[in-house]
């Protein structure tokens, strides 16, 4: 899959951005790692794709990627969706680095909305694309005020939202972008990953970097950092569960997407992490529809 350097686009610097910009981004990343969960402002650049498509993640990846890296890009867990394919192609053409769909082979994984099922290891970097970095934004519209709330660690209002969930739905209904406390200090939005993935962030051996292009913020969770999901004593944090297993690989421990298969109510559940699903099938695990699909 790798391209030789001759095949990279002519006239572009390595990883698209110029060296000064990458330096600025690296400085922001270093600061973000030094203060886990703190949103560091950075001079976000125009990228050749629209805001909301991963401009922040791309800039962070461009800042940290080197010749020796192997890149994996996922969108909602899948390697083969538009966003993932186009970003992977973008870096293949502007850097010539090796790309992969296998989680364990990648040194950098850029992701939109998921954390891979396979546990990540030391030395890997997980780059999130973040649309709205400020977890307090829907509760407090003023940026000056939210910054002050972070500075003084005034986070009571976040529980107001969770209270409201329980009052309306009988349980904490927030199922994605579930707020977390990083290192016991900063309240952080984990980008819109499902809360199913929240426990994976805690004490993760890999470095987690978050880039928000439109909002011009970078934040980070260094390896082995405590990440707690907020909850109430009498309504503890819990993740989604499914009655079914993956129809293709039979996995019961992964995040499942519901797929409508016809217009008479037919449906199936499949792993959202395509690499994990393929891996399991290669090892001989099959779900109810797995063999038929082969």
């Amino acid at each position, binding site marked *: 899959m790798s391209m030789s350097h001759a095949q990279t686009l002519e006239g572009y610097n390595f990883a698209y951005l110029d060296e000064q910009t990458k330096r600025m981004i690296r400085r922001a990343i270093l600061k973000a790692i030094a203060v886990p969960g703190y949103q560091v402002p950075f001079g976000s650049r125009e990228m050749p794709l629209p805001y909301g498509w991963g401009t922040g993640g791309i800039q962070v990846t461009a800042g940290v990627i080197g010749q020796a890296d192997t890149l994996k890009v996922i969108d909602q867990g899948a390697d083969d969706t538009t966003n993932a394919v186009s970003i992977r192609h973008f870096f293949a053409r502007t850097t010539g680095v090796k790309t992969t769909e296998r989680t364990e082979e990648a040194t950098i994984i850029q992701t939109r909305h998921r954390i891979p099922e396979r546990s990540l290891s030391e030395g890997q970097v997980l780059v999130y694309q973040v649309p709205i970095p400020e977890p307090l934004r829907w*509760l407090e519209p003023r940026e000056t005020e939210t910054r*002050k709330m972070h500075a*003084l660690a*005034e986070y*009571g*209002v976040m*529980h*107001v*939202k969770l*209270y*409201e969930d*329980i*009052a*309306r739905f009988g349980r904490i209904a927030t199922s994605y972008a579930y707020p977390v406390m990083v290192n016991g200090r900063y309240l952080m939005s984990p980008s819109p990953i499902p809360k199913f993935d929240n426990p994976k962030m805690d004490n993760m051996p890999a470095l987690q970097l978050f880039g928000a292009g439109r909002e011009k913020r970078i934040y980070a969770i260094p390896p082995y950092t405590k990440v707690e999901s907020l909850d*109430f*004593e*009498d*309504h503890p944090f819990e993740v989604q569960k499914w009655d079914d297993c993956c129809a293709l690989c039979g996995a019961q421990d992964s995040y499942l997407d519901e797929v409508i298969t016809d217009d008479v109510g037919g449906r199936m559940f499949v792993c959202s992490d395509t690499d994990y699903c393929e891996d399991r099938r290669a090892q001989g695990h099959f779900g109810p529809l797995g063999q038929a699909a082969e």
Partner: protein
Amino acid sequence: MSIDINATPLLSVQNLGKDYGNLVACTDVSFDLWPGEVLGIVGESGSGKTTLLNCLSAQLAPSRGAVVYDTRIDGPREIFEMTESERRLLMRTDWGLVRQNPRDGLRLGVSAGANVGERLMAVGARHYGDIRAEAANWLQKVEIDVGRIDNVPSTFSGGMQQRLQIARNLVTEPRLVFMDEPTGGLDVSVQARLLDLLRGLVTRLGLSAIVVTHDLAVARLLAHRLMVMRQGRVVEQGLTDQVLDDPQHPYTQLLVSSILQP
């Protein structure tokens, strides 16, 4: 009500003044507020009442003077010399602020229960059942039907919103409550009920309060002591009945004589 002669004042204001550029909004304001006392600040529009209240409640830094508050732990402290985090903690635990327009003081997008519970969560309450029970308890105290605990305040009437705002402020049992025209915009019968409720709460809980109003009837019902302001200065102060029944300053006389007699 018995007053301990040797007590320290809860709030002590010395030569407070606030300028907006060349405009003097209020100046040379000094008074002591004692525990359990309700002070009324009256005066016409533009007399500096609200600026004064904003300075006292630490929402606005004054240009001159000092505001000393008798904190629970450290004793008397100048509020503008505290760190911002100390001041903000004070504002959401020991103080209450009831705004003229309840929409400014409430969180309109969340239920009544969450509005009342917000301060509890801000000081670390993390048990949903307890927070909810406390919220229900306070709704009862301000005469809001507990069945409406999950309704958002925008479905409430003006009087209910104002009562909800009061409950939201009193839930952490503050010692000092600032009120800016608490009955503004309410019709007279609702005003009367609200005043009755406020008076009851203030007496029962032993609150101190500073009430800004242009309505002398409100001042007479709520305030023990009255301060009359005009053009940024205090022109007269004394016991409420004394000021209203025997006004000395010509402006106070004018103010008292302007009350409509139905």
